[in-house]
């Protein structure tokens, strides 16, 4: 990321542990990154790697265990409740499941109006101005005006997700955490929603943290991509670079596992043994070592820091330099 771009979000040593019956679950473990205004950071990883927890912890929907989140110059983690409420005008979230994240007893207009009323943008008496604002938002996200009084159950998944996007946009935020916003949708609808999100980003200069497990979606939308494995970042770099020359063995295996939509191209799969190990009381060292085809005893001897292998491309692997050279 070049220095000329304005940093809007910086996350420093962010940790979120959950106390469970069988020990401490390290959902997010020492994550660091910065995000420039108007850009999109894609966060990828498999179920249970902590990507959703990361998004929620940044917004303080989960209280962080340790670390800092600096948004627009303010330390989010140190904000009081009052300050936090004010800050939420600028930081919003779009949830994964459009069926579960919208109140079934509220109409489309009530759902979109709610954040505006909570933040006191309109006085309760000022119905006309409020309705005008809601209608504008509905227009913006492609919801027909006739649906103003419709309830969520009357609408399909794509339209419901448009309500979720409208609700997040109503306050004109600067930053939105998008937590798998299209994974519950059919492909033809998914493309409509992705295009909508791209359009509003350009129009409003939004910054996205885009969480997904779908690598083709993330490549399509992101400037930078961060790959997570069991709560830690294993690789972060420019989106195109990641697909061109991944360095971390996990990233390589992940990319090799995506079925290529071309029957003439045979996939060069890198098989992985077993499945994710448990994030509860993790052992020191590389968390991927157990499944890694290149693992040696040194990999589990101590914690592996994220190191830069080239400008803007960091990898958490002790053999990163070696892998990088092998590709050159």
């Amino acid at each position, binding site marked *: 990321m070049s220095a000329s771009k304005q940093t809007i979000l910086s996350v420093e040593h962010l940790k979120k542990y959950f106390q469970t019956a069988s020990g401490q679950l390290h959902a997010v473990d020492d994550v660091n990154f910065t995000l420039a205004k108007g850009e999109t950071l894609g966060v990828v990883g498999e179920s249970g790697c902590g990507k959703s927890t990361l998004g929620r912890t940044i917004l303080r929907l989960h209280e962080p265990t340790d670390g800092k989140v600096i948004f627009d110059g303010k330390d989010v983690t140190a904000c009081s409740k009052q300050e936090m409420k004010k800050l939420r005008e600028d930081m919003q979230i779009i949830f994964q499941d459009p069926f579960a994240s919208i109140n079934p007893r509220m109409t489309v207009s009530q759902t979109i109006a709610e954040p505006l009323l909570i933040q006191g943008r309109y006085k309760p008496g000022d119905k006309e101005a409020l309705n005008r604002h809601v209608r504008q938002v509905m227009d913006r996200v492609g919801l027909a005006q006739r649906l103003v009084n419709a309830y969520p159950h009357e609408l399909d998944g794509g339209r419901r997700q448009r309500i979720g996007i409208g609700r997040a946009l109503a306050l004109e935020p600067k930053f939105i955490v998008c937590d798998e916003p299209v994974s519950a949708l*059919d492909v*033809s609808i998914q*493309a409509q929603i992705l295009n909508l999100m791209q359009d509003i980003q350009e129009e409003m200069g939004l910054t996205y943290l885009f969480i997904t497990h779908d690598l083709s979606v993330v490549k399509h939308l992101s400037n930078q991509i961060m790959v997570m494995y069991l709560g830690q970042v294993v690789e972060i770099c420019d989106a195109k670079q990641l697909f061109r020359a991944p360095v971390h063995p996990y990233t390589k*295996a992940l990319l090799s596992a995506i079925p290529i*939509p071309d*029957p003439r191209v045979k996939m060069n799969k890198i098989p992985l043994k077993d499945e994710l190990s448990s994030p509860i009381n993790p052992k020191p060292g590389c968390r991927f070592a157990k499944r890694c085809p290149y693992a040696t005893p040194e990999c589990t001897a101590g914690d592996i820091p994220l190191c830069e292998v080239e400008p803007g491309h960091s990898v958490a692997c002790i053999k990163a330099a070696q892998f990088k050279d092998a590709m050159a």
Partner: protein
Amino acid sequence: MSDILKIEDLVIQYDTDSGCVHALNGLSLTLREGETLGLVGETGAGKTTLARSIMGLIQCPPGKIVSGKILYRGEDLLTMKEKHRQSIRGKEISMIFQDPMTSLNPVTTVGDQIAEAVMAHEKIGKKQAWEKALEMLETVGISRERASDYPHQFSGGMKQRVIIAIALVLNPKILLADEPTTALDVTIQVQVLDTIQALRKKLDMSMILITHDLGIVAQTCEQVAIIYGGEVVEYADVFTIFENRMHPYTQGLFNSIPKLNEDVNRLVPIEGLMPDPTNLPTGCKFCTRCQHATDRCREEHPEMIDVGNGHLVRCFRAENTNAGGEQK
């Protein structure tokens, strides 16, 4: 290759409070011996209804098989005696369901669940059935020591392997796989698909693979049927579908997905929504979303047109393109 399964003009409807749902509308399809047929379509296209009707799992009421035939080796499954059909279900034709989390019995060990399938169809003792279950577990890559474990002790990928073991323990001739990896992460998806493919070859099975992932289709299927509004709109071998698709819906579907091997700035979605299955258009089912639709498309229902080499297209526009065969 001879036809092992032939579906002719299948019409299935569901009676619901909000009207009659037209799930399948004269669907015809052929599966040849040893072949993998990919069934692609979006939510509500009728994919799962089709699979369930082949298995004889359509609940009547509300379901109703209005007309049509499902011929397995020339015998109509729909008219045969229930007892005869039961001997085919699970033994000759078997199914893997979409959600591994809910398709296993939580209070029975996985070994017993596999053995149960054996004992339902073969006259063998409990001990032999258990032995067979252990062998099958190993075949799908689970160690036999785990046979006495319960489903909750397995991860999602392992559960799906158990389901595959149950489906394949009797060496069926046809396997229906309904989105077998949709609930799994990509690295696990590769393992599960490889297991299915290896067993399919080893046991010389034919397979119908239901999916919406065009990558999986490209990598595993030989023939592809695209389904929309309860009928097949395009049918061809996998290379033709990927390189020379003709139906506007198929084309739209391909344009909607972000591709890893191409850089596109903007996706081209299919405008509009899936038609309401209680109120389908009279003419072509896709006419409401098709940019080429004419008055004829809205009034007249197009038949399948053979454009040569077994490539079938349900679109009037195909009439002018190199009529390789007579209209079906």
